[in-house]
């Protein structure tokens, strides 16, 4: 009987190995950054690729909804048929990674965040876009790539060297829309408590937010902040303050990435942030995702929030939430003098390197990142914040955001110094998730310096695994 059991395992192992070896051959054929050979075309024509069919993978999101709504227009203009799938964000990247890894050309185009590019690009899943953007025969003359905010477009550029900032190297994706991180506050709450102006410094923020605990009856508290064991906790408010304070996540020393999360600046700002959470944050902070934070702001449970600016955009719409109309926006808190900036999250669309329909795919991508679509999206749909400067000049859009006090001013004061503040490297999700776990431990009482020392150690071990070609 034992022999039989072993036999089964051995047979399956052999078959498994053979199968993997076969798949392996498709693996090695997809090597890294090889030059793209594009056919020479003659003049730009929307209808050149009429009759082609492309597959698009979309994340469940208002940006995707805007695309789906205008698919008929695109199909009419180009004659290209679009098949798409929408996956809830919780599972979107699991599915996307699996699909990209199969390297079979499906999907042709997909939605992605900038951080994911740091994994997908080195693995060779993504098509470089420079050859397409710079080709006058492939890109419409009114596309105007310089219309995009520099910081936002840079978020999608990287030269694949761990430690080099964003904005270097190839363009991997085109932005659809983005978010910067700001302070939201409830005007009613401020009035009630006699607070005239939103806090400017971090210490003022702690003081005011603490004062606002319990402002609206049972269960209400000062400021909503994300706290789950996930990279999503680090990248909004926390990273914004981290970088504004002058702290760095990595430095390059002797050609290697070294974690600086236990530097004195890092420990300082972490301690302040933790103080804010403990004094004025939600009691069950470590369960808080984007959803809880946003809905607490809208429901009048949180007097403030330190998170994506579009929180107020959505919650302030008439009838959208209990506190609609009461929300206002202010710049993130400062810890020292100097230009305030913000970390950002950018949703973009990118092209599958193994796609068989790259030209048709590119037409799709430029259409849905064009001035026309973005203006429509920002005024008629929910594509905020729009990534193109021209949209912010549009009267219709200006009027829309004028309903949220402080939205436009805050954006203008912060955008100049905003981009992705993290150091790009493929182990990003690895390192930031552990960072979030460490933050949770510190909130639960661990000593900040000690825990961050341990974290830096851990991270150094993980980035050692980095295989840089």
């Amino acid at each position, binding site marked *: 009987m034992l022999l039989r059991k072993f036999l*089964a395992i051995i047979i399956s192992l052999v078959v*498994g190995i053979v199968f993997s070896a076969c798949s392996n051959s498709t693996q090695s054929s997809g090597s890294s950054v090889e030059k793209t050979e594009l056919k020479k075309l003659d003049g730009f024509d929307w209808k050149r690729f009429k009759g082609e069919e492309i597959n698009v993978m979309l994340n469940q999101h208002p940006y995707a909804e805007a695309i789906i709504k205008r698919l008929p227009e695109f199909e009419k203009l180009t004659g290209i048929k679009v098949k798409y799938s929408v996956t809830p964000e919780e599972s979107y990247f699991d599915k996307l990674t699996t699909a990209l890894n199969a390297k079979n050309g499906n999907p042709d185009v997909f939605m992605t965040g900038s951080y994911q590019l740091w*994994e997908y690009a080195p693995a060779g899943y993504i098509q470089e876009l420079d050859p397409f953007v710079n080709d006058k025969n492939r890109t419409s003359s009114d596309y105007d790539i310089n219309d995009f905010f520099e910081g936002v477009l840079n978020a999608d550029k990287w030269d694949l060297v761990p430690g080099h900032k964003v904005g270097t190297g190839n363009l991997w994706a085109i932005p659809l829309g983005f978010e910067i991180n700001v302070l939201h506050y409830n005007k009613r709450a401020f009035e009630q408590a006699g607070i005239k102006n939103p806090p400017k410094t971090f210490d003022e923020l702690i003081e005011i937010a603490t004062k606002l605990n319990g402002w609206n009856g049972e*269960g209400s508290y000062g400021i909503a902040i994300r706290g789950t064991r*996930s990279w999503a906790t680090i990248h909004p408010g926390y990273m914004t303050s981290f970088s504004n304070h002058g702290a760095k996540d990595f430095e390059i020393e002797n050609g290697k990435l070294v974690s600086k999360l236990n530097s004195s600046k890092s420990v300082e700002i972490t301690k302040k942030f933790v103080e804010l959470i403990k004094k004025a944050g939600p009691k069950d902070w*470590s369960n808080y995702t984007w959803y809880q934070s946003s809905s607490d702001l809208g429901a009048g449970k949180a007097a403030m929030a330190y998170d994506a600016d579009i929180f107020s955009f959505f919650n302030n719409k008439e009838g959208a939430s209990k506190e609609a109309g009461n929300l206002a926006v202010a710049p993130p808190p400062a810890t020292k003098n100097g230009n305030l900036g913000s970390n950002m999250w950018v949703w973009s669309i990118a092209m599958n390197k193994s796609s068989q329909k790259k030209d048709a795919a590119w037409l799709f991508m430029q259409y849905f990142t064009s001035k026309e679509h973005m203006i429509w999206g920002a005024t008629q749909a929910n594509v905020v914040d729009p990534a193109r400067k021209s949209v912010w000049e549009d009267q219709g859009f200006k009027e829309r955001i004028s309903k949220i006090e402080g939205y436009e001013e805050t954006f203008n004061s912060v955008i100049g110094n905003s981009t992705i503040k993290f150091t790009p490297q493929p182990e990003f999700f*690895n390192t930031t*998730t552990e960072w979030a776990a460490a933050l949770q431990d510190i909130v639960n009482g661990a000593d900040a310096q000690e825990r961050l020392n341990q974290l830096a150690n851990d991270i150094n071990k993980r980035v050692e695994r980095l295989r840089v070609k």
Partner: protein
Amino acid sequence: MQVEHKRGKFVQADSTTLLSNEEIKIPFLRKMRPYIILSPAFLLTIGILIPFGMAIYYSFTNFSFKYAVYNWIGLENYISMFKDPEFWHSVKVTIMYAGLATVIETVLGVIIALLLNRESVIAKSLRIVLIFPLVIAPVIATLIWQLMTNNSVGILSKWLRMVGVDNFTWGADPKTALFTVLVIDAWVFTPFVILLVLAGLRSLPKAPFESAMIDGGSAWFTFKNLTLPMIMPMLLIAVLFRLMASLQMFDIIFALTRGGPGNTLMTLPLTAYTEAFTYKELGYSLPYMLILWAFVYLISHYMVKYWSHTQKKASGK
């Protein structure tokens, strides 16, 4: 004439000879009959060994979704795993979770099944309704409980505050996170035990119980010596399946805290998933899953042995 040898099984014998196993010439097709009957089920499921084999293969590589090529690295993943204190922490949490969940659900399930097996109006009307929590997918159940236990807006938190308890933060507090996921697990899966035990209870013969009642034994006596042995096989199946499932439980913990706060709830499946899907290190995550698999295999092996033992006992009675 077919004669019974062991209980419930038969050996075909030629009508004239008597029953000596060695002397019986069983035609080949007859001998193959059980295998033939089993083959469809077998064929349908044996295929799972192929992905399994692949998984074993990849566990010896540094296959990662982040890089285009991968190499064979032998036992490196396994060695790093065994050296990592987080791994041992995962093992501890996994065992605690599975053990507690199974015990709670079994005990509670048996009690409720017994209570439901009566003829009172309440028992009869609740009988089918109490299965309902099982109908809700664990992921969804967790979302519901999360909403109910949210400190600001959750209804359970409101009620706790009404009785003066203000600082109970359920899944957000390292001290109560395990308790919270166990509550959710028990809420969803106790009906599983109830259903199986109830089905077993309701198919028990009445005679032994009637005579026991006449003999005047106490309820506990009846339960311990009559009911329990007779439903033991069914109960053990329930326990076995719950144990296997809770060792592999992923949905509830991930949906509630993703393994946090800190590393409080990082069980083996959670760690494996995080390594494979969040960190995209598939090769490194596989040893975690394979160790888990081996663990489940061993435990089930012994439970099944025990099960066949009780099966014989139950029928003997």
